[in-house]
């Protein structure tokens, strides 16, 4: 009889330990940014052939007053966009050469922006707007899709804006959008590479952008 008590005493903790609800080991998750892309319905992307992208990235950080990102870090990220645009058949032109689409890059870090809606940066003090000076009439941004994200740590946002029809439509329609979101580290090179990887992934999952 005593033997059975021992048996039960041994079995019970083993069974309970094995059975308890496990906390998932999220350490196994990759540190890659989550990449989300949105396309506007009904857009024929092959009707756009040329693009312009600034050599400056809008930057938003709650610990800094900087509103733009320049230099080698910005160059690497912008080059990644250019390479992908070239791969999909787009031609880079100057801002005053009537590009069909404009690409605007933005990076946020340590900022809580819970919803992402048309032109939220319009109202954010100090936010650099690449089109503000080019379109004196200041057309509003328009998102034909719903994109809601929570940025708690870092994000890289790339918007493709229809400039070809901006004057006729009197708005800057975002026809494609990409966001790389997630945790960022303290290493600039590591974060830059994460951003480049996100851009490459964003284009890879958006093959409909091809011009031919």
């Amino acid at each position, binding site marked *: 009889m005593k033997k059975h008590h021992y048996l039960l005493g041994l079995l019970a903790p083993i069974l309970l330990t094995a*059975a308890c*609800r*496990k906390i998932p080991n*999220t350490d196994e998750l990759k540190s890659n940014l*989550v990449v989300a*892309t*949105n*396309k506007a319905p009904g857009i024929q992307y092959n009707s756009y052939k040329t693009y312009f992208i600034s050599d400056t990235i809008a930057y938003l950080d709650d610990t800094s007053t900087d509103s733009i990102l320049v230099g080698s870090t910005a160059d690497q990220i912008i080059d990644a966009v250019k390479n992908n645009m070239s791969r999909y058949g787009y031609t880079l032109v100057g801002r005053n050469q009537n590009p069909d689409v404009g690409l605007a890059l933005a990076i946020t870090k340590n900022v809580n922006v819970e919803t992402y809606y048309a032109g939220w940066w319009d109202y954010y003090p100090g936010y650099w707007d690449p089109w503000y000076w080019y379109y004196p009439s200041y057309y509003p941004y328009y998102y034909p899709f719903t994109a809601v994200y929570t940025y708690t740590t870092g994000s890289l946002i790339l918007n493709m804006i229809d400039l070809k029809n901006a004057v006729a439509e009197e708005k800057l329609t975002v026809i494609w959008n990409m966001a790389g979101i997630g*945790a960022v580290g303290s290493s600039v090179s590591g974060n830059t590479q994460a951003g480049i990887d996100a851009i490459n992934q964003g284009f890879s999952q958006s093959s409909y952008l091809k011009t031919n």
Partner: protein
Amino acid sequence: MKTLKIACLALLPTLFAAQTTKAQEFKNVLLGSWNIGLPMNSDYLTKTSFAGFRVDYRRFIKPNLSVGFSTGWQSFEQYFDTQSYNSSDGNTTVTTDMYRIVYNVPFMVNAHYYFDAGKYVKPYAGFGIGCMYSEQTAYFNIYELDDNGMGFAIRPEIGALINISDQFIGNVGFNYQFATNKSDFFNINSLSELDIQIGVGFRF
């Protein structure tokens, strides 16, 4: 010697009857079982879960029939490597790796019928009906998406109680469980699983 053998053979039914009577003296059984779950909803996750537990109370209303209730939990989890997910309208694509979790807590009333199979083993077939609470969670990067709800649940099962001593018994069981829990968010229309129980308990 021959007479002795005949006498022994003649006594055997009496001995079995005595043992059967003794085995049927208890009216209640309380079981705790380790539950191993094999998910049948292959769309959401497929990995066998060894993280489950089940508690059963059974009240014998006849020597070969018990009614009772059971509850427990089962925690399924599976890692999915990086892949792209498209929205139903095809306009949004999200690429990430993720952990998917399903955590189930069923509450069932049960009836079990027992077959005579000797002194040590009491095979049974049973059926449970009740409800199930379920949580579904997806973890990716630093984010988490979750949904939860209640569903109607049924559970046919077979198994055997094993005599360990006058007070203690073992249990080995196998069941199919179907629950109507839905999640539009994760595109789940129902939750079903196959379970194996290995447990111990006592009778009183």
